[in-house]
């Protein structure tokens, strides 16, 4: 048998292309592996309960309908226990050993500060569920996309509510003496002053302080028309409400989403002390005057009711989990690839992407994708099915 030069070239080309073809075929069949890093156990685990329900539900939906271009989603969960060291180990594990295609989590800012540079070095598409402003930097971390509001957006929501809806001019700003609280206090005081409001009293308070009457008295004597509170401590928030009642002071309290946590309901001396308290919330997870959520979310709640509990968590945590899986699966579906660059490139093109939690828009220069106007204020004592009534004054 004679071998022509042309046949030899063809055979050589086919031989060279074979590994790529095999790789491509294997990639088309392999599952889409999603690293899901969260605080499943420990004192900071309550948000993860909600996030995880959303993640599992969304994965079931995608896989139940045949997957993404025939590829199933495989979630690889790791418990970080709220510990940045464990979060770093988990991140390295899912990137290096599990070979995930994208990561959702960790879900608190302290862990994210430690893991974000590691994910950036691996160019790992990652969805960031943390509020600290410095977590997002498209130059340093082109792979990281924030799918929650930033701290600044929370602050904007509170300030806009105080200034434009409550029409107050004098505010008191308090925060707990944690790393988060101190930073939120400084940012908030600066932004309120910049907006022309008078900060008549501000303090960082030890969350273990047994009585906050002195701080409330100082704020009252200074003429505060609203108390802005940045604390995740249910005890401190409840003490503020009890002290407000003891002082016969009818001042509204506005601030951190933790003002609506169910623990506060157990700690206030009387249920009515929780009135006139407004927390940061989300339009997508707020009941309007008709008692209904926006249609997509109402449909979602109606469809999952009875399948998993909603009352013991926040609807937005569940919604965020759903959105994370949908964002990853849609990127793979639309680009036909689970390559990092393809996923990152696709996310960079999203404009007003309609998620359950909110609308997301990303560009190569802006990875704070959450729409600011989706962040609103809610009535803190109105939680049902994980959602809250809109605070008065919104249309």
């Amino acid at each position, binding site marked *: 048998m004679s071998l022509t030069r042309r046949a030899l070239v063809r055979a050589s080309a086919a031989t060279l292309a074979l590994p790529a073809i095999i790789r491509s075929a294997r990639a088309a069949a392999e599952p889409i592996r999603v690293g899901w890093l969260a605080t499943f156990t420990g004192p900071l685990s309550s948000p993860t309960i909600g996030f995880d329900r959303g993640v599992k539900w969304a994965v079931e939906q995608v896989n139940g309908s045949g997957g993404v271009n025939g590829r199933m989603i495989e979630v690889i969960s790791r418990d970080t226990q709220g510990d940045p060291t464990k979060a770093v180990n988990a991140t390295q594990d899912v990137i290096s050993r599990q070979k995930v295609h994208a990561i959702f989590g960790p879900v608190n800012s302290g862990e994210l500060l430690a893991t974000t540079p590691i994910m950036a070095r691996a160019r790992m598409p990652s969805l960031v569920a943390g509020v600290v402003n410095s977590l997002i930097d498209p130059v340093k971390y082109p792979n990281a996309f924030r799918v929650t509001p930033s701290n600044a957006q929370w602050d904007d929501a509170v300030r806009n509510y105080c200034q434009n809806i409550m029409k107050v001019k004098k505010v008191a700003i308090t925060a707990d003496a944690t790393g988060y609280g101190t930073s939120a206090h400084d940012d908030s005081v600066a932004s309120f002053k910049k907006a022309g409001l008078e900060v008549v009293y501000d303090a960082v308070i030890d969350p273990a302080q*047994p*009585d906050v009457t*002195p701080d409330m008295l100082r704020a009252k*004597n200074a003429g505060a028309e609203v108390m802005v509170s940045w604390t995740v401590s249910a*005890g401190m928030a409840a003490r503020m409400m009890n002290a407000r009642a*003891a002082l016969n002071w009818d001042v509204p309290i506005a601030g951190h989403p933790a003002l609506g946590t169910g623990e506060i309901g157990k700690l206030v001396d009387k249920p009515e002390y929780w009135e006139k308290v407004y927390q940061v919330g989300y339009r997508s997870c707020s009941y309007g005057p008709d008692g209904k959520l926006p249609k997509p979310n109402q449909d979602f709640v109606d469809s999952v009711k009875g399948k998993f509990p909603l009352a013991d968590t926040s609807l937005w945590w569940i919604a965020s989990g759903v959105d994370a899986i949908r964002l990853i699966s849609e990127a793979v579906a639309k680009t036909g690839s689970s390559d990092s660059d393809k996923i990152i490139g696709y996310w960079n093109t999203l404009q007003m992407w309609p998620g359950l939690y909110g609308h997301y828009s990303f560009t190569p220069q802006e990875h704070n994708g959450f729409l600011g106007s989706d962040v609103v204020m809610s009535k803190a004592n109105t939680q049902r099915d994980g959602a809250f009534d809109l605070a008065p004054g919104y249309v």
Partner: protein
Amino acid sequence: MLAAILAAGFAVGATYALIGVTYNIMFSASRVMSFTAGQLGMAGGVLGALFINRLGLPILPGFILALAGCALIGLVTEIVAVRPVLKALDQHLYVLSTLAFALMIQTFTAIEWSTEPQPFPRLLGIGEGGPLDEKFWLPVVACAATIIGLELLYRRTLVGRAFLAIAEDNFAARALGLPERNLRMASFALAGAVGGLAGFAGGELLLAFFANGATLNFFGFVPVALGGLGNNRGAVIGGLALGVFQQAANFLMGGVVAGVAVFVVFIIVLLVAPQGLFGAPAARRV
């Protein structure tokens, strides 16, 4: 305004004072500074809320069981964290053993109870949150009752005098035939009950929270240092002064700055009177 500051200051101060007394009782019996004192206060609040709120017991049985539970913790402290290190007091191993046991109590509470503050039951229903609310005067009443009770115990009963005897000189007390070990165990049980009373009486203010132990450990030690080690009356005056000063500093300066001010004053007092305001300078045989 002044009434609010005084009410909260005396309430918090009385709680600190009772923790100081807890330190003193344990120290008198063993010469050991047991850093479980604050945890006993925390346990008083948590057990009170457990028995009354969660298990639905009436207040009086709940109160007695909470104090009994704390007395038991005091007893276990003596057996586990104090007795093994008594022979090496000069090496101060008790600092490590009692701190380790305190950490175990705190961690166990966090796991089994909650890491979030839980409500403490309303005990008598007196007051509407103002300065005359029960949450402000109950710790003061508990503190006064404890001091009177301890004075009566130490001065009017044989057991009390035996406590004083081992506190004064445990070698001599043993030579006289006093059961030193049993008396020390009884002292730790008594300290447990007093610490538990601090947490129970201050529960409406402090809430049933696993992290209260560390705070009480810290601020409960200040009255001991101010009042003089082993001096209960000094601890009460030191505790009340600390509470009122702390609240006044909170009002005048606000926030964490007030905490710094408290410790600046504390250090100045100790520089001026190292033995405490009411303690006598220790004599050393030469």
